[in-house]
């Protein structure tokens, strides 16, 4: 069901009026580009003479990522409650189709910020990178048992983290591939043969921690970490490796997330988390990150071909980003690799 902007505003206003027992107006609704896994809108909600900017995230007909909206909301709420991770305040979760036909959530809008790291002034790179990987370190340091997420997020055994994530994404590729994927399949076999040891602690893993998924202001302050739809509990190295994937820095692949040399980012993460990164173990998570991304792109191509949505971003992801991810995987795994896209990390 596609809703016109006016219809969406009217239905949401009626919903909030009934829910909060106060007449509510919804205006200035604008759909935000990107956000391929959810339909995302910026809007103003007026209630009891106060107007507040909010972000509406509505499940799409087809998505890059098939996850439960409640999981994402629980992760947002846990991060917000922690007080050490900047996230938009989670406000409303509607789990049923309800008034908008599909599940949705509302969070507070954080104004005056950008997500596109290419718009960051070069002189602010060091400031943003220091925050980016410090925030991730603080997330890794949080006590999972104290986060109040057990009802929504499964807590795996530490020794199962890597295998569980690998088998989930390997199954996505097996289910969704429109054609055989020889590079991704080689990666799955390599990852199965080389499973890492259990992490020293479990962490709330954001699942998509990368440039483009946090808001920064004109002074280079990170104001909010977004897009928690792949959040889960697991090995804290998973997020760190994901944030390093060359795809997020393309074509400047030498800097992690277009921001910092990888070893510098690791140093920042270690200082904030209190964890020591074993580079041999970390290599497994780097390969896994590229494989997980490939699985998402394979799934996008399948969605575009057979799903209800024909959003062009699904095609772009399924064609162009899968091409790049294949090159990254070959670069990481081939015994003849020329290391075009990925460096081998070694401490001096």
């Amino acid at each position, binding site marked *: 069901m596609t809703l016109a902007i006016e219809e969406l505003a009217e239905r949401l206003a009626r919903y909030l009026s009934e829910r909060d027992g106060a007449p509510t107006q919804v205006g200035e609704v*604008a*759909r*935000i*580009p*990107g956000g391929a896994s959810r339909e995302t809108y910026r809007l103003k909600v007026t209630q009891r003479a106060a107007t507040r900017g909010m972000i509406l995230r509505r499940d799409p007909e087809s998505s890059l990522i098939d996850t439960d909206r409640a999981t994402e909301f629980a992760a947002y709420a846990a991060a917000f409650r922690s007080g050490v991770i900047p996230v938009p305040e989670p406000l409303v979760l509607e789990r049923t189709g309800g008034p908008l036909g599909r599940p949705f959530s509302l969070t507070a809008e954080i104004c005056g910020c950008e997500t596109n790291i290419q718009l960051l002034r070069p002189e602010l790179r060091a400031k943003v990178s220091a925050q980016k990987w410090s925030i991730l370190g603080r997330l890794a340091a949080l006590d999972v048992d104290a986060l109040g997420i057990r009802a929504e997020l499964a807590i795996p055994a530490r020794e199962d983290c890597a295998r569980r994530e690998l088998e989930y994404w390997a199954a996505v590729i097996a289910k969704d591939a429109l*054609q*055989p994927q*020889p*590079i991704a*399949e*080689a990666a799955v*076999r390599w990852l199965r*043969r080389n499973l890492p040891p259990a992490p020293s602690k479990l962490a709330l893993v954001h699942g998509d921690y990368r440039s483009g998924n946090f808001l920064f202001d004109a002074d280079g302050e990170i104001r909010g970490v977004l897009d928690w739809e792949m959040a889960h509990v697991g090995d804290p190295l998973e997020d760190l490796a994901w944030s390093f994937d060359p795809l997020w820095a393309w074509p400047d692949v030498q800097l992690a997330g277009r921001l910092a040399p990888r070893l510098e980012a690791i140093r920042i993460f270690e200082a904030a988390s209190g964890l020591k990164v074993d580079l041999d173990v970390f290599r497994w998570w780097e390969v896994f990150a590229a494989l997980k991304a490939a699985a998402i792109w394979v799934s996008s191509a399948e969605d575009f071909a057979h799903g209800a949505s024909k*959003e*062009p*971003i699904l*095609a*772009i992801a399924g*064609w*162009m980003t899968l*091409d*790049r991810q*294949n*090159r990254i995987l*070959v670069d990481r*795994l*081939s*015994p*003849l690799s020329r290391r075009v896209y990925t460096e081998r990390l070694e401490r001096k």
Partner: protein
Amino acid sequence: MIPQSQRAVSFLAQRLLTHVLPDQRTAFGAADVAFLSLAFEMVAQDLERGVHARLEDIRELRAIFGAARRLGPPDSLVARLAAAEARELTDLRLGPLDAVHAQHAAAGIELHAWIEEQRGPEAERLDREIWQHLERHAERHRYDVNF
């Protein structure tokens, strides 16, 4: 017949950027048009090279299948390789060619998994050949787009 079809589609992609995108009234609409243009550009590139890239993949895989026989793979795998090799490359429309290409790629995956379990210099050499093939395969199918 559309003459110079790759260029034609590429022109259409550019036209979207120069004539349709500026008329969009919302950021979402503009992004949508930009993505469409990008998708058209990729279609243009595939239009030009699609048959060649698939045929090259198949040619390389057949050479690897031939070399693999010397290592004595199990009968079931030999049969899979032979079934792929038996497919004739007479219908070069993308649909039928994709089916033949997929059959070779699937047999190649099975062969690579078997090779990884073998020991010795011959197996190592073939593993390297497969990786060289995968590297060339990835390069052959790359999209050169500005994004």
